[in-house]
């Protein structure tokens, strides 16, 4: 009995004090940012601001369903601008291999398959990348814990395959309470910061801390994009059927 007590006393400080490893933090952050609930939906209002102050707006509804394991399906339905209205974008995210992506062009009644390609290219002309929308595989980078403050972990991540991405490394601040990434800064090979993503507002929705306003900035081009999320809901019981051709042709009630 005494031995057991001693063992517990010895272990106690360890379990209380040991900071989670960088990989654990990133894994938790990935879950908090992209896997809240079994499914989720949000209306997104996107404003892209050019260096001269001219703005372009996009409005879309996004549905997300976690499929098997880490694989997910996304359905994005555009309401504005007028020339992309009723277009839909379907992504089957396959962790560890290429995603399957389709674009629905209503004027042609055509389900166009999109070449997998670079996920680090602009999403609908904004400063956000496809990967910012659907998440970056946590195993694609080596993560190091740089600093731990009262409220956040600061991590530095370097790509395992440097040739596959445009950054040399990035730093990300992750909230200790919610594990949501609050800010990320991307650096090029010269060590210059050129890209930044910030969570501007966080709200707790259906029990899940959720980023409801985010901004991505291209520090070189001087452009930025503000995303505002509204009507966010989790666990609405989305059917897997929605993420098929049937509901590209005929947008589901959930997005209308």
């Amino acid at each position, binding site marked *: 009995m005494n031995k057991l007590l001693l063992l517990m006393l010895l272990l106690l400080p360890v379990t209380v004090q040991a900071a989670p490893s960088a990989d654990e933090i990133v894994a938790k952050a990935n879950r908090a940012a992209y896997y809240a609930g079994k499914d989720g939906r949000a209306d997104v209002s996107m404003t892209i601001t050019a260096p001269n102050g001219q703005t372009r707006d996009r409005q879309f509804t996004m549905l997300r369903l976690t499929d098997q394991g880490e694989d997910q399906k996304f359905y994005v339905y555009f309401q504005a601008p007028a020339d992309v*209205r009723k277009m839909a974008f379907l992504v089957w995210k396959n962790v560890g291999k290429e995603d399957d992506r389709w674009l629905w062009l209503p*004027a042609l009644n055509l389900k166009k398959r999109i070449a997998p390609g*670079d996920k680090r290219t602009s999403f*609908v002309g904004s400063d956000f990348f496809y990967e910012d929308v659907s998440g970056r595989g946590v195993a694609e980078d080596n993560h190091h814990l740089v600093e731990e403050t009262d409220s956040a972990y600061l991590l530095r991540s370097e790509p395992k395959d440097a040739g596959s991405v445009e950054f040399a490394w990035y730093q990300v601040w992750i909230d200790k309470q919610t594990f949501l990434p609050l800010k990320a800064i991307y650096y090029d090979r010269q060590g210059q910061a050129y890209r930044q993503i910030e969570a501007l507002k966080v709200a707790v929705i259906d029990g899940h801390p959720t980023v409801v306003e985010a901004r991505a900035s291209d520090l070189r081009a001087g452009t930025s994009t503000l995303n505002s999320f509204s009507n966010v809901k989790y666990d609405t019981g989305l059917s897997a059927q929605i993420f098929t*051709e049937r509901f590209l042709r*005929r947008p589901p009630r959930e997005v209308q």
Partner: protein
Amino acid sequence: MRQTKPPLKTLLTLCLFLLPATLFAWELPYPAEIHGFVDLRAGSRLQSDKYQRDTSLLEARLQLEYSHQFDAATLQLRGDLLADEVTSGESLDLQTGDGIFDLREANLVFSPTESSDLKIGRQILTWGTGDLLFINDLFPKDWQAFFIGRDEAYLKAPSDALLLSLFPAWATIDLALTPLFDSDRYISGERLSYWNPQLGRVAGRDAVSDAERPDNWLQDYELALRLTRNIAGYELAAYGYRGYWKSPAGFNQTSGRASFPRLNTYGASLRGSLQGGIGNAEFGYYDSRDDRSGTDPLRPNSELRYLLGYERELARELTAGGQFYLEQLLDYGSYRQSLPAGQQPRDEYRQMLTLRLTKLLLQQTLTLSLFGYWSPSDQDFYLRPTVKYKLTDALLLTAGGNLFGGQRRDTFFGQFADNSNIYAGIRYSF
């Protein structure tokens, strides 16, 4: 000149579309949301053509779209008011899109059962895996719109059809019934010159082709079937079609007019990820029912058609796609034997290569693209360069070209050499 069509089909079509609207009219106090665009376009031939005007395109188009979701059904209406200077004065024909109104969509979609959808009315139908090449997609195309520089979406002409889609767990089954044959909006000579085999030369406005269209309701129907299944991101499909050659491929000696011989097709396709890009393969057997032996020189022989395609991103915002397409004429010996003396025989194997390059610039507001067809067997080509610039979210500027050429004037693209044109347009979307 163009045959005056009986207004029966037009009337029936209109009734079919007005019916759902009237049925649900009582439900319409909801605020109606109307969208669409205004599109102004002009184009010119790059060379003179003695059978055509130099102006290849000059038009103003207003598209209006309205859709309404009722409790159990969705109504979709979309139509274009068109002022077309090049063929002004034509009477309204909803089938060919001639005249001041082109009805693009007017349909009602609902689910008769939980795992089926029914779409009734005028609609755009598309399937198959080719990029601007079609094997198993036998829905009507508007080649004229495609070649003169209208927006690419106008390549698909509407069908007046009933589309039943069934969604059992193991596949998706689509059945499209078109009660009366919807032909392509084919090249008739009215605004694009074409090779006229009867005259043995290129012809245009001097010999506008007025083909005999099968026009008996329910008797001259088209039936298209597709079965698709997605296996881990790989899309497999099987197709069948019963109908007619979509452009006038035959000739009726009695009436002296071009005709649409009967056609059945059977095919299959596969599309999926391949080596960091997308690969697709498609195959089709064209059973030319009016000339199964291949001995009738006035009707096309049966064919086998094959397609292989691959597309991938080459660099950031730069995508390239290539396709190899092969048409194999069956009963080639009979074809050669029955060919009238003096007529240039076509090859047994017609090959075609296509290339698509797309580059996005300036935060995806500027799109540069090139699509090219080149046939090593016909020794002809067709290039489609386009530039699109989004000045604002609402305003789109477009410029492009349709460049045809070839060794001979009786090949598919070679015949259009005098139609090579450039165009520019502006579109305001709302």
